[in-house]
């Protein structure tokens, strides 16, 4: 099958300029150079709820927050063995993302599956940030290749390996897909709308379950039959 309309591939700094971000369109493929760090619920709670000072100078050190826990181990001599790198689903971090963008100055949020266009409009757009999604979920080995070194590991003792703050020096680190742009448009929502248009036809010849569940009705007095 002939595959035209191949997406654009772009190299981007992990501390990108506003102009570089403005040039990106949803659906572009991006490879990163520079420094990225992992931060997810453990770090967000510690910084935003417990008020503990960040162990990095953000965004000077990095403007790229990766929702990730690498498959990695730290040896007794302090050295690291990092294998595969895969993102975790970002929608779960919605309640922290606004305060986090304000506190960290992050311009790139990298993760799995994106966030809602509402989050983009309310939090990303005012901070000039965009969302990059990992591909496939995941291209862990390809991303692992892009990590040149683990330059630091913060809060390992406090949060465990999976929730700790990993600082990764990366080169040609990708692929990622641009999921949101500076206007707050979402690639996933665009695709979803296209797919939903023909779902009724796919569902022809099926029927709803005899016994309903809460969630299918919000009326708690409903007998669900």
């Amino acid at each position: 099958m002939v595959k035209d309309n191949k997406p654009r591939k772009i190299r981007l700094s992990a501390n990108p300029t506003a102009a570089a971000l403005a040039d990106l369109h949803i659906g572009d493929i991006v490879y990163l150079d520079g420094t990225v760090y992992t931060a997810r619920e453990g770090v967000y709670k510690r910084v935003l709820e417990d008020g503990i000072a960040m162990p990095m100078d953000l965004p000077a050190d990095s403007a790229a927050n990766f929702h990730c826990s690498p498959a990695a181990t730290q040896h007794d001599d302090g050295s690291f063995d990092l294998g595969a790198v895969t993102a975790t689903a970002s929608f779960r971090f919605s309640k922290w993302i606004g305060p986090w963008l304000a506190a960290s100055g992050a311009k790139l949020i990298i993760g799995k599956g994106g966030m809602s266009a509402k989050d983009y409009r309310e939090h990303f757009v005012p901070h000039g940030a965009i969302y990059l999604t990992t591909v496939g979920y995941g291209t862990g080995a390809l991303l692992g290749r892009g990590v040149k070194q683990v330059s630091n590991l913060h809060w390992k003792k406090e949060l465990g390996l999976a929730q700790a703050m990993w600082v990764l020096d990366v080169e040609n680190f990708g692929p990622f897909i641009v999921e949101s742009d500076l206007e707050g448009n979402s690639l996933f929502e665009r695709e979803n709308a296209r797919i939903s248009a023909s779902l009724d036809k796919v569902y022809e010849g099926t029927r709803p379950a005899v016994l309903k569940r809460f969630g299918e009705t919000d009326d708690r007095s409903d007998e669900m039959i």
Partner: protein
Amino acid sequence: MINIEIIQKTAESLMAKAAIEIPDDYLTGLQKAANDEDGDLSSFVLEAMLENYVAAKEDRRAMCGDTGCPRWYVKMGNEAQIDGGPIALEAALRRATANATKSVPLRPNRVHPLWRTDHDNNVGIGAPEIEYGFEPDGNWIDLVTVHKGGLFGTDYRMLFPSDGIEGIKRFYLDSLVAFGKRGLACQPAIIGIGLGGSKDSCMVLGKRAACLRMVGDRNPDPKIAALEDEFKELGNSIGMGAMGFVGKSMVIDCNIEVGYCHTGGMQMSVHAFCLSSRRAVARIYDDGRVEFRTDPAWFTDYQRRETVEW
């Protein structure tokens, strides 16, 4: 007597193989999906996945950074005896899981549900799961490890006979559409469906249908086999591909397993085994021979028996 050190060493190799080497049956299925796919973004994703499998093997690094939840299926021939008995076997599998987490390395995913305690080794209360099956004859033990994703793509529903095939189809589509959006199910996947049993065994059947059957094989009941074909096609007709982008690659294969259920019910579970369908198998004999393979060969006539006596 099967040597316990060989069991632990083999189990450690299996952990690495599962994490690093995409099984051939799934790879062939995904290559076919990549050839057929015409959505531009979905195509890009599938090509990246194919590159990723090569990179993982070349570098001997895990395909996916999310290790999922490593688990074990153990099958024993009726004549097999293990050095140290079942307690030694379970200790060996737990040690292998912990050791491989450090040596591959894998992501230490397993934590306490409330206190979030992480031993950084994928071992803890009830982790890894170890399930058992038996076969007539045989002086061997089969070890199967599966690293199944742990968060999205699985659902259960109590259906009833009056729901019929139309109700089964509805719940199947609901599960694929719900978890397929934004690619949370990590599709295209092997979809396993459990029908019947009771709530717990229905979940077990569906998970095993996803994780322990090969792409391309079919249920021995010809009418269920026809449903498997139909459901595969139905899933790929949703219009959704990898990552929830417009496309037609949702289901690499659909496997259905059944168990006898309450006369009034028709339990159903749906499970998605991800883009890095991680499974590895070895048979260990009592003379020390070890044979590695990727086909769990779990669902034998004995496992699906419906008579009183074998």
